[in-house]
């Protein structure tokens, strides 16, 4: 992402999610992302940031960075980074939809939701940094 992108770095904690959300929403408003897509954008951010907060670092340590830039009318390109252990969330297996209520695993839905709601998504490791980049909004219904 080029130097014109806006960036925010905060502790990797659940309390930071709302601050990141407001930061990205300001960019979404400038890029004129349709209003009915904004809560999906909140959802994508929350899922990725909560994965970082819960799994990337020992508890109460580490940071996450969100960067975004306009990508044409109504569209944003985003990058979310952390400096935890190398981890590609796109390697996570999709949920097993064949299982009934009693056997349905409680986790694993977040990454699946993210992939469903973005237009493209890619992971790369640069040095000690995990970078997940994606386009928003997704393809729609």
């Amino acid at each position, binding site marked *: 992402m080029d130097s014109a992108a806006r960036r925010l770095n905060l502790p990797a904690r659940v309390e930071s999610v709302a601050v990141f959300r407001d930061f990205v929403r300001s960019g979404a408003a400038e890029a004129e992302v349709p209003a009915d897509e904004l809560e999906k954008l909140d959802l994508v951010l929350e899922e990725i940031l909560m994965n970082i907060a819960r799994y990337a670092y020992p508890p109460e340590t580490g940071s996450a960075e969100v960067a975004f830039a306009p990508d044409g009318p109504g569209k944003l390109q985003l990058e979310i980074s952390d400096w935890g252990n190398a981890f590609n969330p796109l390697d996570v297996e999709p949920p097993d939809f064949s299982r009934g209520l*009693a056997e349905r695993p409680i986790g694993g839905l977040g990454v699946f939701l993210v992939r469903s709601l973005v237009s493209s998504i890619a992971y790369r490791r640069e040095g000690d940094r995990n970078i997940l980049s994606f386009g928003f909004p997704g393809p729609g219904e």
Partner: protein
Amino acid sequence: MTIETADLGKAVLVKVAGRMDAENAHEFEQACEQWMTRGTKHLIADLDGLQYVSSMGLRSFLSVAQKLQSNSGSLVLCGLHGLPRQVFELTRLIGLFSVFDTSEQALATL
């Protein structure tokens, strides 16, 4: 997020409104568990006022439903619409729950 509960006799109505996310999803689980410890078997979650739910909220719905089912009870949903409905559909959780338009319809099936 706001949670209001009402005892309807055959079931307890749990009205959830606002945004259910990583910070507050446990409050829904706690509210349901308070009724479960008092012997309630059937809960009706009225989601008409729910605007947003993330995977942490979905975990709470699944967890409550699994506990009730293992005790011969159920969690049924009503008023599901907008983004929350889309999230239940994308994750195919919608097929694991009985879903009704209104709480009256849900209550009539119990």
